[in-house]
């Protein structure tokens, strides 16, 4: 130890260092808390468009009409592990519309034509019913209206399409307009581990 520094001075420096470190940590914690990423999320078991047992209800659409963004932060998402890849998908086709010359419904469900339908695997051109089809949703077009979600719901479909909040688009408003309007309280704010 240098003779210029007494024991008292060394201890004082150490105490000040510890206090600074503690202050830094506290500041960091406060910053994290202030920027806590509690996120808005949709409970599919409560959303009227996807809730099982709610058969014959009308589409809600509030996720698309209430969001403060021009294009809502809510999107329809097809969970491929549950999708049946049907030849006639009730979420893609308006299944009660007139049958066209190709034997398929002539109208589609999505008003923005955001769902794409493609045969997958080795394709049978002669008998289109002999193929499986993949239905993908173009997130640039989807506005989260929920019509496809409602039509995909069991028992008509397999319930593979649900509404989800896209957190890269969501402004994370404290008083989310969709949550205020949701008739089923399905729009909820959850800690980051849960959305």
């Amino acid at each position: 130890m240098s003779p210029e520094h007494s024991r008292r001075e060394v201890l004082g420096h150490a105490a000040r260092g510890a206090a600074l470190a503690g202050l830094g940590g506290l500041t960091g914690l406060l910053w994290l808390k202030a920027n806590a990423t509690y996120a808005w999320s949709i409970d599919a078991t409560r959303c009227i468009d996807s809730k099982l047992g709610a058969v014959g209800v009308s589409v809600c659409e509030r996720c698309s009409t209430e969001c403060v963004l021009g294009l809502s932060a809510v999107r329809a998402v097809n969970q491929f592990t549950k999708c049946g890849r049907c030849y006639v998908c009730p979420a893609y086709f308006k299944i009660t519309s007139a049958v066209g010359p190709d034997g398929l419904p002539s109208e589609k469900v999505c008003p923005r034509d955001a769902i794409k339908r493609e045969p997958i695997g080795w394709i049978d051109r002669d008998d289109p019913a002999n193929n499986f089809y993949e239905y993908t949703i173009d997130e640039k077009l989807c506005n989260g209206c929920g019509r496809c979600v409602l039509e995909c719901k069991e028992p008509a479909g397999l319930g593979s399409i649900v509404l989800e909040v896209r957190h890269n688009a969501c402004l994370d408003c404290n008083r989310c307009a969709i949550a205020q309007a949701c008739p089923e309280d399905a729009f909820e704010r959850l800690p980051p581990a849960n959305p």
Partner: protein
Amino acid sequence: MSGARAVEYRLARRIGGRGFSPHQFHEALRGVALGGDHVFAVGDSALKVFDTEGNLRGKWATAFPGECVAVDGESRLWVGERQQVEIFHPTNGLVDTWRDPERLGRVTAIGFGKGDLFLADATARCIRRYDAQRRFLNDIGDRHRKGGFDIPNGVVDFAVDGEGFVHVANPGMHRVERYSAEGALLGHFGRFDGRDPSGFGGCCNPTNLTVDSRGRVIVSEKAAPRVKVYDPAGELLTVVADAAFDAGARNMDLAVDSMGRIYVVDTATLQICVFSPAAPEVTA
């Protein structure tokens, strides 16, 4: 509809229902079969026996929730389950449990014809054919380009007619297919149509079927649930019912007796709905 005489049906009776009474089902009702003067139903983890008036006459526990039930020529009751079949004597209860671990997944329909035994395997999406000694003979439907029957509903249902032909619901392709016992596709009828009742609507219909003694094919559909009768050539004869069922019902199993009465499982209300022809039609 075809020029054949259309038969009108009326809802005559409801059997069972949701609840905890002995004659009710509290969780699931999946299969119905007829034998003698009895109605056999599998649901929850039980096989229940009703008389035609709907009174409970017997009940046995099954090892697993029953997926289907069928009555063989010796009046024994075959209950399809996950990876096994339980066989019950109508008065003595369980007499045998049969497993074929290499082949049997979820058994959702059972049929008999020309001495053979047919089991629908929803896991492999095909029908397994065995001889009377339970030796495997061949599969039916496994040569489909889709790898089997297209069953988004998760159930393979079929019926064997009096000539030994196997009629199968292939809902993803909106048609009923007819096979020889050896697995050769002999023909099919049906097409998608969400408006015309002669077609099959929705993503995947019909879900279930049975064949009566005249070779008429009786089918059930989901979303919206209804029951229809087709002649052997595939012409629609009549829509039996489209308002009698809960809107959430699907995979509604069917049975038909010699009087032409149709028994339909409403999987939502857990009832067996019995429809009688307005004019009785007794067949041999």
